[in-house]
């Protein structure tokens, strides 16, 4: 059973990609609806299997690591697989209605979408440094292709900038991987971690870790390397922006976190952890501040991503050299932050797309009067905002609460003002959008009404993000599941 679930996750998205490449947009839409259904069922199946029996290692091609590639299927990985299935299903569904089938180039949306999904699943499950690199490449290139879809000059400019940043990040990561391989002769993260723990091995170097972390933080758009993100996420079609902000940047962060948790204890240092945490803290403040002053609606949401990504990097200082329970609490907080941000940000971008479609302009001040016309989409935008602000009972609140506790428990009180100020500034930019939409304008309003399903999708995501705080317990209990007794062959 399990091998088929694994294949369903890794190989069927690739099959959907090939099938949709050969047909036009409308047929591709039918195939993708079927595909989305299959992927959601398979992801739920694997999640249930791991929740029931614990995690396991899976050898591709029957070759054990380090000769072959080994996948790591644990609680955290399946949590992200399921999150990806939910968010990508919502974005795919939204895109199938939102994108105009009459434009010939939109047919390429589907194959790129499916390649992206395959790459994401590969990264969540990957346990091999080089395989993770390939997964990252799959994700980055399809993301760049999705941003550039249509080839309009501003989109191309943003896409090229994104491509350059992504390539530099990939190369830095690859250089680090090559050094690790040179030193240990193995590419398996678990294998390298085991070797580092053994006595008699030469102590590892810090340079490979630095290179890998530099590449991955560049791809995650950590301050001050975030310059590529707002143009790319702002100019892409709204379902694409949602995918990019909710999932794509999380993939590189996930790899950085896994490397840090497995190797950081041996190769990292207090200063490095504090430096990364500090940059994250600046990102929270700076991103929120910039979001407050953007004239275009989607740029507001994009800068808000820069800020929300900043929180994730508090993982580094909060897990270095602290007691096991404190570190675990920080990991849980960050996981919740990733999940709630993914749901909320996807909801926000999809709602923003609906609002833009309705008023026919991408500027914040053009929203005047839309509150009476499109209350549903505006409400989804606000609900997602509640999670970003970190108000109870949202997932964002639970995440920040855990981070707050682990900051206090580890004596790193200096992260507290960041958590508070970030929440306040998020409130400011969400309310700014609301204020614009409640303004009354002289003259006749000309609004276009998007289809009802377009409005339902962001609402579902926003509600999930809001309700996450209530079900945080069960979600986190699966996330920390260790490998099963018999499964870890």
């Amino acid at each position, binding site marked *: 059973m399990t*091998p*088929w679930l694994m*294949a369903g996750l*890794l*190989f069927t998205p*690739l*099959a959907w*990609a*090939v099938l949709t*490449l050969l047909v036009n947009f409308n047929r591709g839409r039918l195939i993708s609806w079927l595909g989305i259904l299959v992927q959601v069922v398979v992801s739920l199946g694997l999640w249930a299997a791991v929740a029931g029996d614990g995690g396991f290692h899976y050898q*591709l*091609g*029957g*070759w054990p690591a380090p*000769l*072959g*590639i080994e996948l790591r299927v644990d609680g955290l990985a399946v949590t992200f697989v399921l999150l990806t299935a939910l968010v990508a299903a919502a974005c795919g569904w939204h895109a199938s209605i939102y994108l105009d089938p009459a*434009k010939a*180039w939109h047919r390429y949306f589907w*194959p*790129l979408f499916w*390649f992206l999904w*395959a790459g994401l699943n590969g990264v969540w499950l990957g346990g091999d440094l*080089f*395989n993770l690199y*390939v997964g990252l*490449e*799959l994700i980055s*290139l399809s993301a*760049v*292709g999705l941003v*550039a*879809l249509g*080839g309009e*000059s*501003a*989109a*191309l400019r943003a896409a090229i900038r994104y491509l350059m940043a992504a390539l530099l990040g990939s190369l830095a990561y690859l250089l680090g991987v090559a*050094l690790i391989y*040179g*030193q*240990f*002769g*193995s590419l398996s993260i678990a294998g390298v971690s085991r*070797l580092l723990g*053994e006595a008699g*091995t030469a102590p590892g*170097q810090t340079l490979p870790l630095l290179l890998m972390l530099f590449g991955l933080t560049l791809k995650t758009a950590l301050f001050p390397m975030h310059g590529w993100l707002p143009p790319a996420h702002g*100019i892409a*079609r*709204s379902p694409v922006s949602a995918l990019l902000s909710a999932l794509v940047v999380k993939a590189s962060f996930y790899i950085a976190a896994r490397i840090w948790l497995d190797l950081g204890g041996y190769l990292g240092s207090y200063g490095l952890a504090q430096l990364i945490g500090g940059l994250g803290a600046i990102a929270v403040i700076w991103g929120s501040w910039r979001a407050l002053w953007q004239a275009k609606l*989607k740029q507001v949401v994009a800068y808000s991503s820069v800020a929300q990504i900043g929180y994730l990097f508090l993982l580094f200082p909060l897990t270095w050299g602290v007691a096991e329970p404190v570190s675990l609490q920080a990991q849980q907080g960050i996981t919740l932050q990733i999940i709630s941000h993914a749901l909320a940000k996807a909801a926000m971008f999809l709602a923003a*797309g609906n609002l*833009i*479609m309705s*008023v*026919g*302009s*991408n*500027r914040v001040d053009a929203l005047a009067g839309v509150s009476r016309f499109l209350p549903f989409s505006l409400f989804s935008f606000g609900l997602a905002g509640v999670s970003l602000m970190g108000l109870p009972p949202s997932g964002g609140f639970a995440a920040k609460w855990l981070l707050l506790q682990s900051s206090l428990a580890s004596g790193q009180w200096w992260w507290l003002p960041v958590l508070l100020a970030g929440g306040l500034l998020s409130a400011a930019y969400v309310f700014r959008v609301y204020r614009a939409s409640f303004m009354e304008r002289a003259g006749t309003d000309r609004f276009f009404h998007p289809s009802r399903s377009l409005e339902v999708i962001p609402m579902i995501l926003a509600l999930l993000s809001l309700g996450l705080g209530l079900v945080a317990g069960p979600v986190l209990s699966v996330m920390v599941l260790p490998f099963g007794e018999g499964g870890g062959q």
Partner: protein
Amino acid sequence: MMRLLASALAIAVCLVFAGALAAAVWQIAGTPAPVSLPGLLADNLAASGVEHPVTAVLLNFRSYDTLLEIGVLVIAGIAGISMARTTSLEDPELRTSDSLLYALQRWFVPLMLVLAGYLLWAGSDRPGGAFQAGAVLAASGVMMRLGGIPMPFLRPGLLLRLGLALGFTVFLLVAVASAAGGEAFLAYPKAFTKPLILAIETVLTFSIAMVLLALFVSAPVNQALEPEEGDPG
């Protein structure tokens, strides 16, 4: 002055980085790796179906990586043709009709095709394989295109997309079929390992060449087609 400072700073950063890298490599070179992957590889080479270790790693031990890498190439091709200006292929300005070039091509193209075939076959026991052969095949395509030989299959259409996807599809089918036959995913049945790898390499060569060629011919991208959301068209 500022420019001078900036370039001095950039040079200093590059030198420090190169120095750190050199020191790291020097230290690694001095200590033997605790795991000897080449040794493991040599022990398992007989089971891989090919004699050359690089091909064995690419298409057997780490075939999942290669499958995804081909996927990356297909994505690049898709991204390229999604912005292609359809008419550019028929653009008379891009056509050349040079009789000398034409005569040269009649010598070179068959030669390059033979070379591509040789590289493909050589992959089983010496350096070579699908990527190299595909690059040579694509280069001969580029030369034909520059020489003005019409290649209608490169027009964005079903044929082009089929060509892009063919190698990847066959690879994927083999991966799934091996599982249906009771083996693990991407594990080739023992009796068919060599023919299967050869078949995959052949279609991969073709598709790699198609991707590179498609990227070359779609190079002049279209003028602004799709305005940003909410921008008046």
